[in-house]
């Protein structure tokens, strides 16, 4: 159509630009109206003015219409984008269905990465990120005494940072601080609950009246504890935990006023605690709360430090400021200038031990996911070679590069989401395993599961992963394909792609290297750890813990009689090779210490603290602790005979560095004792830590707190347990067996964290190695396919199959070599972060690095060698006929 020809009526025209449309429309309106008015005899100017006036405020009308138009436009764009997305996803699914092997491999790879990352994330989220279930939890802080001067003492160094408060410090909090709007304190303990004559242990909390208020919680039934109940011999009232109320009392609303017998003392239930109320994420809700400060030993004159404290910060006060003020208050109250205070966010305080290891695991899982992404990117890149022509055709047909990239990204994201779905299922299973594997020390872990937040995380991971591994091939493909349509044969524009391929191979190998180094380092560390000599022979030893009411432990003769009779009966059992009893045997979790001084020496601060154990004869021989010097205890070490003690190697070294300890006298618990023997050091809590000095005294001369039976027997524990239980249960009606555990299990529990880490990182490393081998196999296979013709020609021209194999492998192996070098460098630096978690192995352990290097190199050669060899064996005649 030429421009001069006037358009006929009704002809379709191009729409004017969106924002100009209404102006044109209004101009048309005015013109038409003016023409009409002019026909009635108005002048042209006048007619136009009237026509415009009839329309009212032109600018306002135009604005309103523009707004509507833009809104409509946006809406349409959204619909358009959505339909493009759906179209893209449909296209992607069709394509993926056509390559089921590729799809499955890619999806599984991503599923592994996302599954691992999601399950670790749900643990991290539940333990570290989610706030405590109290009102304004960020204002809640834990208050501890800090005693920096103790950090050097190996026995009680744990008290340097966190010591529980005593009555003096509580008074100081009340009278000398203004940082808190309130504080509550408690003692976590256990009691014997007697119902119908049978006793069983339950967890109890002796709580201050203020504790519930500080937490912002209320009893669901009845009332809370009252201030006037927190006094010596105050009224025996109790709150029952929601869980105990529902399970033991069937949620009976008539519970208020009921009587329960705790430690042979009647208590009246006055209220029911809210559901799931726990003062520490790691421990289940207590069965009962009783008023604190009611016992003699809690009175200020006993100077007992036993209270955990949680306080609520006033608005605008930081924990640091509160800490400063509190430290001053403690120093002023106790007159001890070495005292300090530790005021820490309550959630942090409960989880600080788990923090480092958990972030470590999250990092490892991120590494695995990244490896998965690189792997799929390689697979996609390989796949993209075969799509070059399709993409070129689409570009030639007018599809913009952006559109094609979008389409390819939709494809990769579809794979990723497919993987995420699988991964979510995997994560669900994995999280169960993780939580069951984890030690109970990770606070709150038992209540974890994969939830909406974790699923959101998985989807986020999938989208990022999809873009991440889709972007490289997409950009390469669109760049390579410009003009590729005209070329005949397989696109050799893939030179760029090949270089990228090498980079991806190198990245994957390097990342796998790092993860493998981590895994192997942990495994070697765990190996060293389990090989540590604990200082006694744990095999065939079982530890039997008892439960009894407080009255039993306050009755020394009754206790001694019980344990002597117990040992006598246990020794008589068939299959038992020896039995003894002692306070705080190794790995039992118990611990108590007191100062020891040497006769004739003066000390500044009352003497260095020493682990104390009150034991019955046979304790050392049953445990297998070697006697270094002197003798063990025997039946003659009793009341009436000379007070004696046995010290550990470490104690002997500390107190008698250049002489024999045997025959010397030490001052302990207000009495002089003659040292009759020196025994080997025993690792008592952790295999990683050498134990501090210890002193052993005969139980017949000094009866202490809860004591554990130890039995050596070559019989199977399961066979032995009923006999052990029935033997001990009949001696004193108030005392019953609480647990029977083999010593090796107790030791193994002490390094459950280390084992847990090793299993997880090891599994990740294994996955990584698998992914790397699959990736390398895939890449080489692609390379081989692409070069089939070339190889055929070379073989036809006389190249040996070996030479042809080399040719195919060379590309992959160059990437692998770069990756190994990169991985080595990165790991040498990165492994330092693991130092705190390693035992007996350096983060730069040459053996580890050598092993990983050898392993990855072997895997790479095998994974790329198989397809390369196959390609080189191809029949040249057949190959040349093809294509």
């Amino acid at each position, binding site marked *: 159509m030429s421009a001069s020809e006037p358009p006929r009526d009704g002809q379709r*025209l191009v729409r004017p630009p969106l924002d100009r449309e209404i102006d044109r429309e209004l101009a048309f*309106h005015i*013109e*038409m*109206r003016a023409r009409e008015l002019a026909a009635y005899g108005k002048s042209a100017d006048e007619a136009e003015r009237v026509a415009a006036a009839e329309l009212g405020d*032109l600018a306002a009308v135009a604005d309103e219409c523009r707004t509507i138009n833009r809104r409509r436009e946006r809406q349409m764009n959204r619909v358009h984008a959505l339909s493009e997305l759906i179209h893209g996803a449909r296209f992607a699914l069709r394509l993926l269905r056509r390559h089921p092997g590729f799809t499955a491999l890619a999806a599984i790879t991503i599923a592994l990465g996302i599954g691992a990352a999601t399950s670790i994330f749900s643990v991290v989220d539940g333990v570290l990120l989610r706030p405590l279930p109290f009102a304004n939890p960020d204002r809640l802080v834990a208050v501890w005494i800090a005693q920096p001067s103790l950090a050097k003492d190996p026995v009680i160094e744990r008290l340097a940072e966190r010591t529980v408060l005593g009555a003096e410090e509580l008074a100081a909090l009340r009278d000398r601080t203004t940082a808190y709007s309130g504080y509550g304190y408690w003692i976590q303990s256990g009691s014997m609950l007697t119902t119908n004559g049978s006793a069983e242990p339950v967890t109890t909390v002796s709580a201050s009246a203020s504790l519930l208020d500080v937490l912002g919680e209320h009893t669901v039934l009845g009332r809370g504890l009252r201030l006037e109940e927190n006094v010596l011999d105050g009224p025996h009232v109790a709150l029952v935990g929601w869980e105990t109320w529902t399970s033991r009392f069937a949620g009976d609303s008539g519970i208020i006023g009921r009587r329960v017998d705790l430690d042979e003392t009647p208590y009246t239930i006055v209220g029911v605690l809210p559901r799931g109320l726990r003062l520490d994420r790691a421990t289940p809700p207590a069965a009962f709360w009783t008023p604190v400060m009611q016992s003699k030993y809690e009175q200020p004159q006993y100077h007992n430090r036993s209270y955990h404290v949680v306080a609520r910060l006033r608005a605008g006060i930081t924990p640091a400021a509160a800490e400063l003020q509190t430290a001053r208050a403690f120093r002023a109250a106790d007159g001890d200038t070495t005292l300090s205070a530790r005021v820490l966010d309550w959630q942090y305080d409960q989880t600080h031990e788990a923090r480092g290891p958990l972030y470590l695991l999250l990092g490892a899982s991120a590494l695995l996911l990244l490896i998965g992404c690189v792997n799929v990117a390689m697979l996609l890149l390989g796949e993209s070679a075969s799509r070059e022509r399709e993409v070129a055709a689409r570009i030639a047909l007018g599809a913009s590069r952006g559109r094609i990239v979008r389409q390819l990204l939709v494809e990769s994201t579809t794979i990723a989401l497919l993987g995420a779905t699988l991964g979510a299922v995997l994560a669900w299973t994995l999280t169960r395993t993780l939580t069951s594997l984890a030690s109970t020390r990770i606070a709150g872990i038992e209540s974890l599961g994969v939830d909406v937040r974790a699923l959101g995380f998985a989807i986020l991971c999938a989208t990022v992963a999809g873009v991440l591994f889709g972007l490289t091939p997409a950009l390469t493909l669109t760049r390579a394909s410009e003009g590729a349509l005209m070329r005949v044969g397989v696109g050799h524009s893939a030179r760029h792609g090949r270089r990228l391929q090498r980079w991806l191979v190198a990245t994957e190998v390097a990342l796998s290297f790092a993860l493998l180094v981590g895994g192997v380092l942990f495994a070697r560390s765990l190996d060293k750890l389990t090989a540590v000599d604990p200082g006694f022979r744990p095999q065939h030893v079982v530890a039997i813990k008892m439960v009894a009411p407080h009255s039993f432990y306050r009755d020394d003769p009754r206790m001694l009689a019980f344990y002597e009779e117990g040992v006598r009966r246990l020794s008589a059992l068939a299959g038992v090779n020896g039995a003894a009893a002692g306070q705080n045997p190794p790995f039992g979790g118990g611990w108590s210490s007191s100062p020891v001084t040497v006769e004739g020496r003066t000390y500044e601060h009352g003497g260095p603290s020493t682990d104390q154990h009150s034991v019955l004869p046979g304790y050392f021989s049953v445990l297998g602790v070697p006697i270094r010097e002197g003798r063990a205890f025997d039946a003659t070490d009793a009341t009436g005979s000379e007070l004696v003690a046995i010290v550990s190697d470490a104690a002997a070294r500390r107190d008698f560095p250049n002489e024999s300890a045997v025959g010397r006298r030490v001052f302990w618990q207000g009495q002089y004792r003659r040292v009759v023997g020196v025994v080997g050091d025993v690792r008592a809590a952790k295999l990683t830590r050498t134990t501090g000095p210890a002193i052993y005294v005969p139980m017949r001369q000094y009866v202490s707190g809860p004591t554990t039976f130890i039995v050596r027997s070559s019989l199977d524990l399961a066979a032995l347990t009923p006999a052990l239980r029935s033997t001990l249960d009949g001696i004193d009606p108030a005392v019953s067996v609480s647990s029977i555990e083999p010593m090796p299990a107790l030791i193994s529990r002490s390094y459950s964290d280390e084992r847990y880490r090793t299993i997880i990182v090891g599994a990740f490393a294994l996955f990584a190695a698998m992914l790397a081998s699959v990736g390398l196999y895939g890449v080489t296979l692609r390379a081989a396919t692409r070069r089939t013709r070339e190889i055929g020609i070379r073989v036809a021209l006389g190249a040996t199959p070996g030479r042809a194999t080399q040719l195919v492998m060379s590309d992959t192996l160059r990437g692998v070599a770069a990756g190994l070098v990169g991985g080595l460098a990165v790991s040498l630096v990165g492994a330092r972060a693991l130092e705190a978690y390693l035992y007996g192995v350096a983060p730069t352990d040459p053996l580890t690095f050598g092993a990983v290097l050898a392993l990855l190199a072997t895997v790479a050669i095998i994974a790329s060698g198989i397809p390369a060899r196959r390609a080189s064996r191809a029949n040249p005649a057949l190959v040349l006929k093809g294509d």
Partner: protein
Amino acid sequence: MPGAPGSRDRLRGTLDLLVLKTLTGGPRHGYSIARWLAQESDDTVRVEEGSLYPALYRLEERGLVSSEWRTSDGGRAAKLYALTALGRKHLRAETDEWLTFAKAVTRILQPQS
């Protein structure tokens, strides 16, 4: 003034209804819609012409009318509006409702003589 938004809505609804009605005979441009409304109602219904265009745009947004730029009136470019299937349905339903309403109001207001 209580009830004001409701009556305002009814007015706007009425304008929409009338506009849709004008399009039953075929596509028209905005000016012709304004003219037709004025003529058909013997100038009783003086549509505020300024509000006609936003009404048209809104109807288009709701999918009740579609628009197209075409030549008309001897080669002038004009934007023509046409009823969509949805618009036709809407018009039918609204018309019924309006008539019922009007009948009821009329019955009440009619002097019983």
